[in-house]
């Protein structure tokens, strides 16, 4: 392992610490008597159900889709045509199964893309080993072509 990988891993560990939702309360898998129904419900709710949650005003930005976003949409539609998922299963996976941190933290089509990869593993169209090896292969190919 190169030291740049270690640096990246350590930066990653620091970063996930920053992503902890701000509950103003430490959460390290509490003992059963430290959680009540209200907390249980808050933790187990479908995270896309944001209607009525307190929030700050969000700045509206006019922006066109990027090429990778359009490609992601087309890929997900192809998965539907081939019967890999239906629209409701796609929404469940990309809006709820990803969890609150990723739901709020990733770009909209980023959630589509990671979910498309996830369902191929979940339904055994590819193994995770095949997927990570392929990503690694594409990454090094890309690094070589940009180095030239």
């Amino acid at each position, binding site marked *: 392992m190169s030291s740049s990988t270690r640096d990246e891993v350590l930066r990653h560990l620091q970063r996930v610490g920053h992503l902890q939702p701000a509950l103003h309360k430490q959460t390290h898998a509490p003992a059963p008597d430290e959680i009540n129904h209200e907390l249980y419900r808050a933790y187990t709710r*479908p995270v896309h*159900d944001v209607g009525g949650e307190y929030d700050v005003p969000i700045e509206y930005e006019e922006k066109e889709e990027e090429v990778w976003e359009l490609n992601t949409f087309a890929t997900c539609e192809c998965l539907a045509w081939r*019967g890999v998922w239906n629209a*409701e299963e796609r929404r469940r996976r990309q809006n*709820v199964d990803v969890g609150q941190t990723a739901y709020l933290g990733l770009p909209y089509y980023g959630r589509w893309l990671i979910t498309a990869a996830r369902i191929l593993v979940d339904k*055994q169209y590819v193994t995770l080993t095949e997927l990570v090896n392929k990503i690694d292969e594409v990454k090094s190919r890309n690094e070589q072509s940009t180095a030239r």
Partner: protein
Amino acid sequence: MSKAQHDRTHHAKIASGIGDPQCFAGKAGPAKFKVGDQVKIRDLPDIFYSRTMAYTRGAVGTVVRLVYESPPAEDEAWDNTDNPVWFYSIVFKQRDLWPEYSEAYSNDSLETEFPETYLQSA
């Protein structure tokens, strides 16, 4: 571990040339509610998945329209289409949903859809 056996085209087979939700027409049985009925939104456990917004739970609204028959989202999200139900369009007074909603706009309403599974007589 072997791959789960699942007919990936079962939905296309019933919906081709007909459409969705049209392919579920007549599959939900008699509707439990009719236009004008007062209904209360059930506060069913919302673990794993639901399309019934938390802010409507326990609120009372009026049936405006029976919209279509379809599997509830909670089933369809796992690709199960075995139990279609009636979907209803329900209208609420905004003041009944948001306690802080201004009295000046007390005529404001909100209309949205629910599967029959989430409705009870009010």
